[in-house]
């Protein structure tokens, strides 16, 4: 009865309770952030970073950002986006190399992955804290409610990114590396003696399968990189033109809830999850010479794609190779040529030969 005359009291009480629950969850995000930074610091130290300046180095890396290109005028946006992505990566690598002077080129890619994970864990924590403080500042129940609603997803996201750290520090393949892993196993299966560095951190091996030539491409391992498959596919297609009868891309893809991890599906198009420039180049190259573009995907959850590869995914390699062989028999006449590209992070996956 009394509360009817003070309608703000229940709402304020609910706001205080909600903020208190969020504060508890923020401790979890903060713990992930701290552990991410700690792992990054350990890795930097391992490769000769100055221990006295470690806090400064780690802070600079986790606060690193890039600004996407303007999209109000979309003309040429993919070129600008590609430029920003390349530049961002180049700058981050330079920073890491200057902080960890004893690192070699291959391991630098792996350290880059560790830095990226620490950066994301810090970002998640920072954004959640921002909305919590905003709700607290304005005593706004509705802002507090929104952040409380998405908190379980944020914690799950942080947890999954955190799981990627052991893979990047120990150089173990992650779920996303299934495409390169298939190609590496094809190098072994067809006894590819030598692979060529085709630039853009990509390698190419030539093999023969039932009187058909196979051009097998993946990112250069075993460091953690995805390379620039679009640029390399374009380069190879421009070289062999319509002698290539099919382009097959193999990649990990997000499964829907309820779908089985490691299930394989086949379709049309370029199976690649980049922000746009690489996919565009593959599509453009295929279109120029009217080459069929076939995609094979290995389904997995987002958490599985960024954490160490689970057995259920890894053991699908031979089945994917069988699917590729079946496709080649169907689509490439004897004497013809096929380009098979394993898309994804090649962390912990070597170059076969």
């Amino acid at each position, binding site marked *: 009865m009394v509360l009817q005359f003070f309608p703000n009291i229940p709402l304020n009480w609910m706001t205080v309770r909600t903020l208190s629950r969020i504060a508890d969850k923020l401790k979890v995000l903060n713990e992930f952030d701290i552990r991410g930074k700690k792992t990054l610091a350990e890795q930097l130290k391992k490769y000769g970073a100055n221990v006295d300046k470690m806090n400064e180095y780690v802070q600079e890396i986790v606060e690193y950002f890039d600004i996407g290109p303007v999209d109000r005028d979309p003309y040429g946006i993919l070129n600008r986006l590609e430029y920003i992505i390349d530049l961002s990566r180049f700058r981050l690598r330079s920073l890491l190399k200057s902080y960890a002077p004893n690192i070699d080129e291959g391991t630098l890619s792996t350290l880059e992955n560790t830095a990226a994970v620490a950066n994301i864990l810090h970002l998640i924590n920072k954004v959640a804290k921002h909305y919590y403080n905003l709700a607290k500042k304005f005593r706004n129940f509705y802002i507090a409610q929104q952040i409380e609603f998405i908190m379980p997803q944020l914690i799950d996201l942080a947890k999954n990114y955190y799981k990627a750290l052991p893979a990047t520090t120990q150089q173990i393949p992650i779920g996303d590396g299934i495409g390169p892993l298939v190609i590496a196993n094809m190098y072994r299966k067809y006894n590819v003696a030598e692979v060529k560095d085709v630039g853009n951190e990509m390698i190419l091996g030539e093999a023969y399968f039932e009187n058909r030539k196979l051009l097998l491409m993946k990112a250069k391992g075993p460091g953690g990189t995805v390379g620039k498959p679009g640029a390399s596919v374009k380069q190879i297609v421009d070289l062999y033109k319509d002698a290539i009868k099919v382009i097959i891309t193999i990649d990990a893809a997000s499964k829907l809830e309820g779908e089985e991890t490691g299930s394989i599906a086949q379709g049309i198009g370029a199976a690649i999850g980049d922000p746009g420039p690489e996919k565009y180049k593959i599509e453009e190259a295929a279109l120029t010479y009217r080459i069929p573009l076939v995609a094979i995907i290995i389904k997995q959850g987002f958490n599985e794609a960024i954490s*160490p590869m689970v*057995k259920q995914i890894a053991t699908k390699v031979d089945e994917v190779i069988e699917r590729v062989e079946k496709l080649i028999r169907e689509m490439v006449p004897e004497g013809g040529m096929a380009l098979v590209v394993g898309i994804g992070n090649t962390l912990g996956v070597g170059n076969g030969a």
Partner: protein
Amino acid sequence: MSLKEINETFKEISSMKPLSLLKCTKCDEKLERSYKEGEYATKVVEDKCPKCASPMYVKLIYVNPPPQPQSSY
């Protein structure tokens, strides 16, 4: 998820043991053992094939997925 529950996740992650599946370079023999640091898929390792004593290479590296909580449905 509380801080206490998340500590379980940290324990689970730190106890995650990667495995290497080795394959013989000559025959089809396969062997699963613990992953050794520095190994990567396709690397030829020192282990010999138990069947024909030929060198073996790392075919796959993986972890066993953590046990999933049982659904109540």
